[in-house]
């Protein structure tokens, strides 16, 4: 199967080279979307063999993933995977997830940190993610165990049905809403997020304010 792994990156020069190198085990096309970085993210990604798409200004993770996915869809890839640029996702997990598509008839496979495996991240993050899960269940009736997880794979042919409008982190929730609305076959996969010193220094995401935004979007019937 022809697989495109979309890696949205904003000022990730410290990690992007390693991430792209590690993804080589997946035997797929690596598409890094440089979201207006001011450092050498694009150059390093290219040197390590990735195809780089560049946003001239920073739009947000959702926008970068949309551009990359659009490219993969236009270029007739079979599967589109979303993978973080800060080294938190494991290429081995992605490989295992891709294998599931060879045997199972699923439209989308979502990574989950909360399927029984231990969580090594900061406690604050765990609380926020758990709250996000409850919030998604109550407000949006989404039954997924980790709605804010950025690791996902979906068949390219469903991209027009799930194309998201949010440029920021709300795209995670929006994608899940589209999957549900279109009654697509979705499964979850237990994965481990690797929290290291580098990723811990970055802003805690998702922010609590995202909950308010989800509520607002739901009120306006945009989700």
């Amino acid at each position, binding site marked *: 199967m022809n697989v495109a792994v979309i890696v949205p990156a904003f000022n990730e020069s410290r990690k992007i080279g390693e991430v792209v190198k590690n993804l080589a085990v997946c035997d797929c096309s690596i598409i890094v979307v440089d979201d207006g970085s001011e450092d050498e993210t694009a150059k390093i990604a290219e040197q390590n063999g990735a195809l780089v798409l560049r*946003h*001239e200004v920073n739009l947000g993770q959702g926008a970068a993933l949309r*551009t990359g996915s659009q490219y993969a869809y236009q270029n007739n890839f079979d599967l589109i995977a979303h993978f973080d640029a800060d080294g938190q996702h494991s290429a081995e997990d992605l490989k295992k997830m891709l294998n599931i598509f060879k045997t199972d008839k699923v439209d989308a496979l979502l990574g989950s940190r909360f399927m029984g495996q231990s969580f090594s991240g900061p406690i604050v993050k765990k609380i926020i993610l758990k709250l996000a899960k409850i919030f998604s269940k109550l407000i949006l009736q989404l039954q997924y165990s980790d709605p804010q997880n950025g690791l996902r794979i979906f068949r390219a042919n469903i991209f027009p049905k799930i194309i998201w409008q949010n440029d920021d982190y709300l795209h995670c929730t929006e994608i899940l809403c589209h999957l549900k609305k279109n009654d697509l076959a979705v499964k979850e996969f237990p994965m481990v997020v690797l929290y290291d010193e580098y990723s811990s220094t970055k802003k805690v995401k998702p922010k609590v304010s995202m909950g308010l935004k989800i509520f607002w979007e739901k009120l306006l019937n945009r989700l």
Partner: protein
Amino acid sequence: MTAFQIIIIFISGYSIFKSVYKLIKKEIGWALFALWLSVWLFVLVINFFPLSITWLANSVGIGRGVDLIVYLALLIVFYVIFKTHLRIKCLEKKISRLVSAQALKKANEKKVE
């Protein structure tokens, strides 16, 4: 006539002059010109006949003329903020589409090379 009234006349006159100038230069449309003109004419009327605003306030059930002005000003400010917010959101969307299209175009051009 008080000094304050004279200042208001100058400010209103200048604003109307600027509106006419911008209309002639086609920097604003007729709708916006009409809106500005009516706002400043309203200010001038109140300036010359201060009691008229009290009469207007009483007729809509508000005690003091000043209160009516404050309520109207707040309504206008909220409306302007709302419109500005919508305009910014619309612009953000357009920029997002443009930046994305540009990235895809460059990537496809690179592929052809």
